[in-house]
C-alpha cells in the first residue's frame, strides 16, 4: 500500500524528484550539446 502510494504520488507529481534530476543532468546535456552542436542538433 505504501508503495502504491509512492507510485501514484510520483505519477501525479513527478516534479517531486524530476526537478532535482533535471538540475543534475543538465550539465551533462550542455556539454553534449556543445559536442553535437558542430553536426547540428534538434530542438531541445
Amino acid at each position, binding site marked *: 500500500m505504501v508503495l502504491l502510494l509512492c507510485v501514484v*504520488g510520483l505519477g501525479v507529481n513527478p516534479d517531486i524528484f524530476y526537478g532535482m534530476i533535471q538540475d543534475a543532468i543538465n550539465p551533462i546535456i550542455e556539454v553534449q550539446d556543445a559536442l553535437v552542436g558542430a553536426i547540428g542538433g534538434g530542438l531541445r
Partner: protein
Amino acid sequence: MWIEALILSTLVASGIVLLAPNRYAGKLAAALSLAPLALSGIMWLNYDAAGNALLGGDMAYETTTRWVEFASYGLNWHVGVDGISMPLIVLTTILTTLAIVSAWTPIDTRQSQFYGLVLFLQAGLLGVFTALDFFVWFIFWEVVLVPMYFLIAIWGGPRRKYAAIKFFVYTNIASLIMFVGFLTLVFSMGPSVRAIDLTQVAQLVRTPGVVEGIAGFSPNTVKLFAFTLMFLGFAVKVPIVPFHTWLPDAHVEAPTPVSVLLAGVLLKMGTYALLRFNFTMLPGVVRDYAALIAVFAVVSVIYGALLALAQQDLKRIVAYSSISSMGYVILGLVAYTTHGVGGATFQMLSHGFISGLMFMVVGVIYNETHTRMVGDMSGMADRMPWTVGIFVAAAFGYMGLPLMSGFAGEVLVFLGSFDSTISPLFTAVAMFGIVIVAGYLLWAMQRTLFGPFDLETEYEIRPRPSTTWHRWWCCCSVWSGWVSTLTSSTV
C-alpha cells in the same frame, strides 16, 4: 556528516540484528531501519544543491578527507549527494524497510542473519549512490554482492546455489572488466591525475587533450576501449540483452523480499553507474556510437518483453519485464536530451517502486498458495480481493498507466529520445513495448486472478473480508498522499 551517519546507522543496525535472537530479529530490523529511512527523509527535505556532482556542481552533505597516501596517488573519502543520487537514496531506504516488513511471513529460519544481511546490503547500496571516490565507490560496489549472494544461496528456492553462484560470478567478472576499463582511462591521463576522485577524473577527462594514447593507440581508441569495457561491465548489472541471463534465475530463486531489493535497487546500480561513468565522462564516444547503444536499448525492450510473454512463472514474468523496463532507461540515456536523461533517471526510480510493489504482491500470493505458476491457480480475486486489487493497480503501473509513475518515466524518455541525435525510429520501435507489456500482464492476470476459483496446490485459502478499519486506512493514506503531492507542487 549526514551521509556517514546514514551509512553507519545501517551498519550498526546490521550488527545489532545479527546478534539479536531470531524471534525478534524481524521486528527489530524494521525498527532499526527506520533510522536510515528518517535520515534520508530529512536529507531529502533539507536538500539544497545544484548541478551535477561530477561536473563541479554544488553537492549536498559533501565530505572530503584525504584517506590514504599511496605512492603518488591519494585515496579520498569523498561522498556527496546531487539530484541524481538523492532520489535513489530515498528509494533505497523506503524499499529496504518495506522489504524487511514483507519478509516477516516468508522467512522462518535464521532470521537474525537474514535481516542483518539485508541491512548490510542497504549499507552497500547507499555507499554506491553516495561515493565520489573511485576506490570508495568500488568497495561499496563489491560489498553489495556479498550479502546478495548469501541471501539467495541460503534462503532461496530449490536451485538457489546455481542461481547465487551465477549471480556472483557473472557480476563479479563484469566488475573486474569495468575496473580494467576505468583504470585504463585513469592511467591514460598520465601524471595530470593525482587522485582517483571521480569528480576530478570526470572533469579532466572531458578536457580536450588530456587523455593520451597508450602503447601506440590513439587517445580516441583508448577512450573507446575504456568506454567499451565499462559499458560491458555495467551492462551485466543493468542488465542489457544479451548479458541478462543471470537475472531471471536470481529472481526466481531469491526469496520475495530479496527480489524486491534486487529489482528495485540493485538493477539501478548498473544504470546509475552507466550515467555517472560512461555518459558523464565520455560523451564523445556516446555521440559516435549512439545508434549502436540505441540498438542494445531497443533490443532489450522488445526482446525482454517478448520473453516475458513466454513465461509461466509470475516472478519470471516480472523479471523479464524488468529487463524491458531498463531498456527504456538506456534509450533515455543515449538520447542525451533533458527529458531523455532526466526521464531515464526518473524511470529508474519509478521502476524501483513499481517492480518492488509487483514482487511483493506476487510474494503475498505465493505465501498463501505456495505456487507462482500461471496455470496452477485461477480466480484468486475471489479469495483475496484486496491483494488482487493492488496486483491490478501494480500491473497497470507497469503498463505505464497515466497518473502512475511508470507513465511519467516512460513518456519523458519517449519525448526526450524522439527528438534527439538518434533516429526517432528507435523510439517508435521501443514504444511498441507498451503493447507487449499489456499483453503478458493482462494475460497473466486473466489466468490467475479472474475466472472461477481453482488452486492446484494443497493450501487452503480462507476468504478474508477486509475490515472497515483497513479500508479507511487505505483511503486516508492514498488521499493524504495525493493531497500532499498536489499541494507541494503548487508551493
